[in-house]
């Protein structure tokens, strides 16, 4: 019971701080702007299962295509866009929320309470994740509703973007948490998270690397790095394939990214528990 009270208090406090720092409203405002964009740029007239016209920015782009296939293709592209969009926004917005609790004069009071250090850190982590989850749900559900109402096609696989976005955000947030514990710097934590995103896109080009790299050891190093770091790029691609009905494919990027997150969180809790404040 006490653990529930403490956990709820820590999560609520993260939300309060997110509101106060305008993080929540910033995410919400940008998501709303994007929803309005989708509402007004696209007009689709549906005639008995086929589109009569599709207009983007007032220009007719396609005629007489299958609505379901068309919406699925659009959904695939948009879910990839939302995945990257939400990731950028969430990382910018979140890094400060974790580092804030280490401010001198604040951390001592938190540590003086009968709460374990792991509990304090995980409370913030989960709170941060929920702040982003709420906004992601709002944006993805909003886009799904807009397309559903405009086309009459309710393609539920699109909602998989929520799961993919939150999963990879949780993975990157674990790295942010570790950097924040070690350095207490929000800026450095943000840089590391973006660095991981870029690195993921580079490391994902495995087949190209296998062709370009001449020595075996450099290819082995590439593969090792690929498996160590989170697969932001691959999971984004998996999400798009899933939405377009091509299935999920191999689950390796999921479990290896999950292992990365668990290792980061264990290291965060360990280094937090060893620190003096």
């Amino acid at each position, binding site marked *: *019971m*006490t653990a529930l*009270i*403490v956990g*709820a*208090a*820590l999560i*609520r*406090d993260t939300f*309060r*701080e997110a*509101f*106060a*720092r305008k993080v929540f409203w910033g995410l919400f405002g940008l998501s709303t702007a994007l929803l309005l964009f989708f509402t007004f740029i696209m007009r689709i007239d549906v005639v008995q299962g086929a589109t009569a016209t599709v207009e983007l920015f007032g220009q007719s782009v396609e005629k007489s295509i299958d609505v379901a296939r068309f919406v699925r293709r659009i959904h695939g592209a948009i879910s990839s866009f939302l995945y990257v969009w939400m990731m950028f926004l969430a990382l910018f917005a979140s890094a400060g929320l974790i580092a804030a609790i280490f*401010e*001198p*004069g*604040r*951390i*001592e*009071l*938190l*540590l*003086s*309470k*009968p*709460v*374990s250090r792991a509990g304090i850190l995980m409370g913030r982590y989960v709170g941060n994740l929920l702040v982003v989850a709420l906004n992601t749900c709002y944006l993805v559900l909003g886009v799904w509703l807009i397309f559903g109402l405009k086309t009459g096609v309710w393609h539920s696989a699109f909602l998989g973007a929520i799961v993919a976005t939150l999963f990879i955000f949780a993975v990157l947030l674990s790295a942010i948490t570790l950097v924040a514990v070690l350095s207490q710097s929000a800026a450095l934590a943000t840089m590391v998270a973006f660095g991981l995103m870029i690195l993921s896109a580079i490391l994902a080009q495995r087949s190209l690397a296998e062709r370009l790299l001449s020595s075996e050891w450099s290819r082995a190093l590439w593969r090792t790095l690929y498996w160590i770091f989170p697969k932001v790029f691959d999971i984004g691609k998996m999400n798009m394939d899933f939405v377009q009905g091509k299935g999920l494919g191999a689950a390796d990027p999921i479990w290896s990214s999950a292992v990365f997150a668990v290792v980061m969180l264990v290291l965060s809790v360990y280094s937090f528990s*060893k620190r*003096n*404040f």
Partner: protein
Amino acid sequence: MLADNAIETDGLTKIFRSLWRRREVCALDHVSLQVPRGTTFGLLGPNGAGKTTFVKTLLSCVHPTEGGARVFGHDVWETGARRPIGYLPENHRFPTYLTGASMLDFYGALSGMDAGARRRRVPELLELVDLARWGDVRLGKYSKGMLQRVGLAQALMHSPELLVLDEPSDGVDPVGRRHIREILHSLEEIGVTIFINSHLLVEVELFCREVAILHRGKVALVGKVKDLTAGKGYRLSAASVPDNLAAKLKEAAAATASNHGLMEFQFADREQVNRAIDDLRAGGAEIESVAPTTSTLEEVFFRTVQS
């Protein structure tokens, strides 16, 4: 069974090591201190004496290099050991996005209080610290003195048995100080142990029953305020004091200290100091000095720190 001491440290040592410069700073050097349950205890010392490190060690913010600390008989590193502690830190930074009431609610919840208990307790405490009309105002709008008072209310949220206050009067005007003192007196009457870390000697002298002076990470003096400040007295220093004799003299002395193998005893009158000299000579100890002492805590403090 109830522990006799609210706080008990045994050879508490903290050495801060700088990895890059390979420098070591000994903040606490084998500090052994007992704070009896129900007392009001002041921890004094010049800047850099190790007072804040000592307090942070009690609250598990700082890992000791050696030795340990117990609160009501429990190791401070047990999460539950911190349940009976209310703490007001020095240089606190309460989240400014919280209002006075929501701040009390948050820290009350972290202490394990359920929602109903928090709802009842918050207005009571805001009233107690004279901030009833400020409960819905964000802490960012509070003055330093108001923050100190709401900080005290925060420390009292879960009705702690031990109150640890780090510079409680910092930034508070004289009226506010008296008000805080009155609140603390009322807590003392109901048996709450109060541990104050302060630079303000007058405040400690007015409020605390017992004091310890930390100097360069060591306990330089510990005793009851009334004995230390009760008119004229005598300070006796001796070396090579046998253990059994040291224990006997500690009972008779108003205060004792130990420094580099030299033991110091503070006696209230000439008769006591002469009897102690006789005992020390008979026990084979070497007397270093005997000096008359004067009475205010400030004088005791300076004498101790300068010696």
